[in-house]
């Protein structure tokens, strides 16, 4: 058992937990976009950034979804620096995806309504959850991130139908912005069609997605 402090509260955590898990365990909310408890952490969205001070006095900002708990760690999840960073991140994401309801809601919550940058019309925030669910849960490896930097996008090999897609719909299920969706019998991300589903597959996937709608989201 490890003891650490989060926002002034002394809490216990198990060895090997991340700071995010330790916080969630005691009901302290830290915003996330690229995190899912069933998947490995990636540290892509940086929204879960927190300020940590180690026992030796080193202070820095880390991604709580990856930072392992340690004895005597002092964590600030909502310091001015952290709020400033999160507002900046949300402003960047809102400029990328101004039409995403989820992103707009999160941004508004932090006081951002009009980004100071030119608006793009993307839906995908490149959080990579779809790729991880496809690798780690479905073990299909049907889609991946392609290219790098500003050209990065999620696609199936050669922008074709994904040969190894099993049609589970996991990618659509975890997608935080709804960029990947089931459109008729197709799993698609914008113009890219990953899979054409059989009527039975469509039914199964739709049931799962409906079930997700009914469960109030955590965090």
């Amino acid at each position, binding site marked *: 058992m490890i003891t650490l402090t989060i926002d002034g509260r002394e809490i216990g955590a198990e060895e090997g937990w991340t700071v995010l898990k330790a916080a969630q365990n005691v009901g302290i909310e830290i915003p996330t976009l690229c995190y899912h408890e069933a998947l490995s952490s990636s*540290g892509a969205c*940086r929204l879960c950034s927190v300020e940590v001070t180690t026992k030796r006095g080193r202070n820095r900002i880390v*991604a709580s979804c990856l930072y392992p708990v340690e004895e005597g760690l002092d964590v600030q999840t909502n310091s001015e620096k952290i709020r400033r*960073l999160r507002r*900046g991140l949300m402003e960047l994401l809102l400029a990328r995806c101004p039409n995403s309801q989820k992103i707009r809601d999160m941004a508004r919550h932090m006081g951002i309504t009009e980004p100071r940058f030119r608006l793009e019309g993307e839906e995908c925030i490149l959080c990579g959850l779809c790729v991880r669910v496809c690798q780690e849960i479905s073990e299909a490896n049907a889609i*991946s*991130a392609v290219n*790098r*930097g*500003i050209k990065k996008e999620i696609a199936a090999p050669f922008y074709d139908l994904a040969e190894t897609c099993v049609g589970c719909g996991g990618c659509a299920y975890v997608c935080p912005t709804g960029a990947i969706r089931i459109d008729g019998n197709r799993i698609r991300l914008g113009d890219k069609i990953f899979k054409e589903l059989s009527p039975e597959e469509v039914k199964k996937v739709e049931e799962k997605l409906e079930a997700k709608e009914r469960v109030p989201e955590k965090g």
Partner: protein
Amino acid sequence: MKVKTREDLDKLRQEGLKSLYPDKLKITVGMATCGIATGAKRVFDALADEVEKGKFDVVVSQTGCIGYCQREPLVDILAPGRERIYYKEVTPEKAVQLLDVSVAGEAKEDWALFRMGGEENLIEERTIRYVESQHGTRDNKIPQYKEFPFFEKQVKIALRNCGFIDPERIEEYIAKGGYYVLLKVLTEMGPEEVIEVVKRSGLRGRGGGGFPTGIKWASCRNAHGEPKYIICNADEGDPGAYMDRSVLEGDPHSVIEGMIIGAYAIGSHEGFIYVRNEYPMAIKKLRIALAQAEQYGLLGEDILGTGFHFTIKINRGGGAFVCGESTALMASLEGKVGEPRAKYIHTVERGLWDRPSNLNNVETWANVPPIMARGADWFSSIGTENSKGTKVFSLVGNINNTGLVEVPMGVSLREIIYDIGGGIPDGKRFKAVQTGGPSGGCIPQELIDLPVDFDRLTEAGSMMGSGGMIVMDESACMVDVAKYFVDFLQEESCGKCVPCREGIKRMHEILEDITTGKGKEGDVELLEEIGFILKEGALCALGSTAANPVLSTINYFRQEFDAHIRDKRCPAGVCSELITYSIDPEKCTGCGRCVKACPAEAIVGEKKQPHSLAVEKCIKCGSCFEVCKFDAVIRQ
């Protein structure tokens, strides 16, 4: 033959000495990439042809880059008992003439660059004299190597053999004391003792971060898990930087020997050199060097008969700048997409394939054999309090002596730029120097006396980085320079984390606006805000330092940003949207040079009458400005 004893090494040394200093005339061509680019291969072939014809009884040899890239192809001639003479800008025709002249015992003073009475054997702390006394020294105007301004202040440790040995002959490396160090380490020292020497030497990583090498080695040695890996980062990608390439092309064994010593100290048996595929010659030289080291039992099983085993594999990078970041490099080595991961658990504990991995860059490894040979005290006597030893820089941009220089830590930028670099060409004024590549920053004229070491460069808002040094004169627009680096980074960001992918893109967008006259009040503050998000929020060092080129130019050249934003004016006359050309009728003589130069037919006028420029036709290429001999073209 497998080398097992000092006597075996001595035999190879004898062979090396024979080819280094043959008993007849030897002519050597600098054949690193910089030499080849200016025609060294043709020079070498011409010389080889002449010798083939049987006309001359001479040895034609090749070597790496001695650093003076400005005057390549460089050729040097060494005759027994005489001074070595270096010649500049040698063509195939000149080379053949040089043969003629040299065989006759003469020198071509006009073509010569400098002469050398002997060379240093750094490892064994002695000088090899070509001439015993003043006898044999020619009475001529050719300057001495050590008095030649470019070399005078240089201290060569990592580059000790570059330009002096044939990188394809292990015997020559051994003749300069190479692999004797390894023998001493493996037979006389314990692994902890080796680490202690490296720690005490104060050596810090030359790849950019400047982490103390000895502490890294110790952490990796103490980390749990087997196997442990040794990695050499040769994914040099900063614009204008080619230090590592030159070391690999000129002295690959120094890196290999350093890695074997590191492997012994850490307890590793498997090593990788991750080298970018854009360095084909470095890869070729490395392959030859590895094969030779294996052939002589200096690498592989039972090294030097001590039972220690270590192998090295070359892995070629596919051309992603981000793969120079250690975790991205390891992901790439594993065959995955080269994306960085968080380093909250250090790579010395969980690196390549989640095993303890020790990564150092080319220059760091090349420093290891001299440290083990000469001791920690010797190394730490060079440099400043917290930055020991030397640093290699590639000096490029608006500078008279483009080249590769190695200087003790703590020399000032002024000494590097003016004394070694020879100052700024065409009588222009020095404006700034960009150090540390895309992660570094621009240091202005006011700080030219700044001593160059890890900490001082960081304090100035830049960083040591791997050692690229881009000198800029007054004709550089600093907003444009910042945009250049941001453009580079937005292409090279891996795109994984939001601050880096989205933030750099937006920085570029704002800088593009500013340089095209669309800048507005608040843009600079917004750039600074993105800088904060990158520094504090980005996942890896590429992102967290990406704002440095922008923040440092804002810091030191704020007035240039303001001129672009408020006055819609580019003071340096670079940003084409913000400048107009016109002709001063008072100065114009009507010579017509500008009319011929203008690709847009925007300039008209009668002969010997002042010309005029039609602004609506002008494409702002600046050709008229360049060709006018009377300063009659006005750029505003």
